[in-house]
């Protein structure tokens, strides 16, 4: 099953550390294009999502049977009445592609690695849009998605996502003891839904507290 979205080439370059207007060599250009094509063809993306009523009280966020203390998440979900939890993965073939490339060429492996990261992000954007449109029709407006491990939302909450969405059974993604996901190109997130439309809020790198030091931050 191929990836249902296109992988933006400029994002792949960003993940590879290209900054500003760089003249890539024809060799690197070809390699990046090849990685994108393989990823788009071989990915087997899957996702699972579920909606829950949510309450926010101070820094305390509650949904299903979960109580989370997080300033950043509470700010993100302020005013929301519902939230959608989701988990998405680009699938196991993506990891295999990287491993496979690493045998013969670390340069090509890094292209695949970056293309995989861009692939899962693009796939999540697609799911995000789907959820946003679905709820807008019902008069609920989506907030930017927020993930465990982001800001002060503890990574340990991955366990709640895995339990509530039965992620392993539904998508084949496993949570390791060190709270990493396998296949590696996987994302868990929550999207808050509010009856009030907010003005365009900051999201992604612009909202992150690490933006000034992060090597992969979007700049310019």
């Amino acid at each position, binding site marked *: *099953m191929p990836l249902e979205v296109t992988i933006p080439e400029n994002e792949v370059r960003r993940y*590879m*550390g*290209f*900054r500003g207007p*760089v003249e*890539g*060599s*024809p*060799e*690197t250009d*070809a*390699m*990046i294009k*090849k990685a994108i094509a393989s990823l788009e063809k071989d990915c*087997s993306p*899957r996702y699972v999502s*579920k*909606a*829950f*009523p949510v309450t926010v009280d101070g820094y305390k966020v509650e949904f*299903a*049977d979960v109580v989370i203390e997080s300033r950043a998440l509470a700010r993100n979900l302020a005013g929301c009445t519902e939230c959608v939890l989701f988990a998405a993965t680009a*699938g*196991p*073939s993506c*990891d*295999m592609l990287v*491993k*496979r*490339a*690493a*045998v*013969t*060429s*670390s*340069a*090509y*492996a*890094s*292209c695949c*690695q970056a293309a995989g990261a861009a692939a899962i992000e693009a796939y999540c954007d697609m799911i995000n849009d789907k959820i946003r449109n679905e709820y807008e029709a019902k008069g609920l407006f989506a907030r930017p998605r927020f993930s465990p491990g982001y800001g002060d939302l503890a*990574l340990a909450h991955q366990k709640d996502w895995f*339990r*509530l969405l039965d992620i*392993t*059974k539904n*998508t*084949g993604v*496993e949570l*390791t003891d*060190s*709270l*990493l996901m*396998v*296949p*590696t190109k996987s994302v868990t997130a929550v999207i808050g839904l509010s009856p009030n439309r907010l003005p365009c809020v900051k999201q992604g790198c612009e909202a992150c507290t690490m933006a000034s030091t992060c*090597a992969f931050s979007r700049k310019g």
Partner: protein
Amino acid sequence: MTLKERLGKEWLFCDGGTGTILQEMGLKGGELPETWNLSRPDDIKSVARSYFEAGCNIVNTNTFGANSFKYNNLAEIVTAAVKICQEARHEAGRDDDAYVAIDIGPTGKLLAPMGDLPFNEAVKVFSETIKAGVEAGGDLVLIETMSDSYEAKAAVIAAHETCDLPVIVTTVYDESGKLLTGGSIEGTVAMLEGLRVDAIGVNCGFGPDKMIPIVERLARCCSLPIVVNPNAGLPRTEGNKTVFDVGPEEFSRVMKEIAAMGVQVMGGCCGTTPAHMKALIEAVSSLPFKEPVRKHGTYVTSSSECVEIGPKPVIIGERINPTGKKRFKQALRENDTDYILTEGLKQEEAGAHILDVNVGLPEIDEPSMMENIVYKLQSVTTLPLQLDSTDIEALDRGMRIYNGKPMINSVNGKRETIEAVMPLVAKYGGVLVGLPLDEEGIPETSDGRIRVAKKIYEAADEYGIPRDDIVIDGLAMTISSDSSSAVTTLDTVRRIRDEFGGHSILGVSNISFGLPARELINSHFLTMAMQNGLSCAIINPNNDHMMASYRAFCALMDKDPQCLGFINAYAEYKSDGTFGGASSGIAGTASSSSAGTAKLSLAEAIGRGVTGRAAEAMQEGISAGNEPLELINAELIPALDKVGKGFEKGTIFLPQLLMSADAAKAAFEVVKKSMEGKPRQVKGKVILATVKGDIHDIGKNIVKVMLENYGYDVIDLGKDVAPEIIVEAAIKDDVKVVGLSALMTTTVVSMEETIKLLREKKPDTKVVVGGAVMTQEYADQIGADAYSKDAMQTVRYCDEVFGV
């Protein structure tokens, strides 16, 4: 009558959902259902009893998630579950015709290489649960809801090694008929039939209507009784509750339809209730029953591929084999798995369907090597493998951890070999190559070979191995010593097809041994053999002539729809005989022949990252009489240094740096080849690892390449590596320097732990650390011996430590 006698002879019914009913009864999110076996046994019993009363013949114990990862008191939990189910059966008055199934679900962990649970560890975990269930008196093992065929294999082996009870396996497919890990219905069935389970089926996933196309495909390929246990439709959330929409009536109506498709066992899964089962049993039991029919197909599979032998010739790549290859032998001795894997990947790109794996060398531990290479190959390619060895232990270990149903090379007509190899195939499953030679030697006539082939087929019968899973070798032997040998071989191949309806295989290139222009003889012989019915050709797919014969044959014999395969391969064919696109380079090295790079010097080629030219330039330098080491010092290293400095300054970006590293590696490979047989100058051994919790290993990989280029043997332990593993490796090889990398502040803690453990267990080893968040100050704080801000600094540090 026993369950084994009844399976496939009459309608049998499984139970429905348990988890969903327990939730109704108050099971909380996060609460483990199996704890109720001890805390609320009466509730568990009432569920089981209602299924027995509804008429189900096979009712599961409440042990779906019971394994030693989750329970310290596993035996107690499982024993209680079996006892409860037995009591429920007794109370329902069903002691005579119903069975207690030891229910086995997935471990929840992904198996290595995809995840981190080693295959044999998974077998052990399943064995513990099954053993407790068997000792408590379970009647069968029901392995269900498997979404990875590899994990299913581990569970089946565990069951067979623990008991003689019947084993049923059901898996979860998506709507396209794929497992979460990519396996197909046909491939999964082939693997499970090879493992000799007693029934195969499908459960969970979705409701009965969506299972119809899956059951259709299952019924087409499966020779065993088929089990169908759907959900009551797709789960839906209402508030905080999960609900299912398909009621008993609708459920049984669709199941009635499915019953007519050649299914023998039916039941339900999530959302189905005793009422669903009662309706199902009423609807189906009076319908005509069809016994399973033996299907004739020969499949070789991997995690996600399924190659059918028969419809058109199959190409088996022969290059993973040390015979007559110095460089390959060296790779085996040095445990240089990347070289071996590259040989495999090249053949895949050239068009091989299956890879032969022969890693036998007198001075190495072949069983360990076979296991290791099978594992590593299966982590980078989905092509099925042919395990090729005369060492029975090597075959055993390779077959055990193999993901799928492999090909096995080989058995012959000698009783001793039959008795050694066939039990392995009977246990693990596989398509077995049979050489028609025996105690009397190699028969010189096709009559003689057919006689031995018959003996091999009969031996297979004896071991219960289906004749479909036997492929007879026609024994290609050089025409340079016996000019009639090709005729005999071709006769044998044809007669295998005509007289047994069987499949054949040839090591094609043996035919030309001792002759010049071997590829001419080989490729024509291949065409002739295929015309005589050859099913599998063991060849070098990197050879253009061989692949040309194969592609032309397929195009001519209507085995290449619209000639698309042929057209794609030869779009750039030149009439002067160059093959153009047919032999394009391996992944990522496509730049090797780009125009305008032909005259680059070694340094320039490395600077620009032109892999092919770098190797060529190094070769030219060596051929011109230069010392390889001189070329490395004068050209290779300065070129890499220049790129490295550019990277530091930000004028060169990571991919370019890596391409240069690749080019340097390719040039280095040429040096390695030129020093074949000569003792290699190794400065020392260094361990590299990205610490536990961290998966960002790009930096570590750069350091690895640099260290290797500067003459170090690098033991690369990978990423997310636990402190214990690093320490163990350091002790095992008495390694003087360990390099640790971490990208995230959060994982520096693991770095500190690793250093602590090293100090404790291996105090004389030096630790050098690096990574994006690392600073000299940080390194001092966590007790490292050195901080390196880049790869070159690591090299310099190692030179210092090793005094070179």
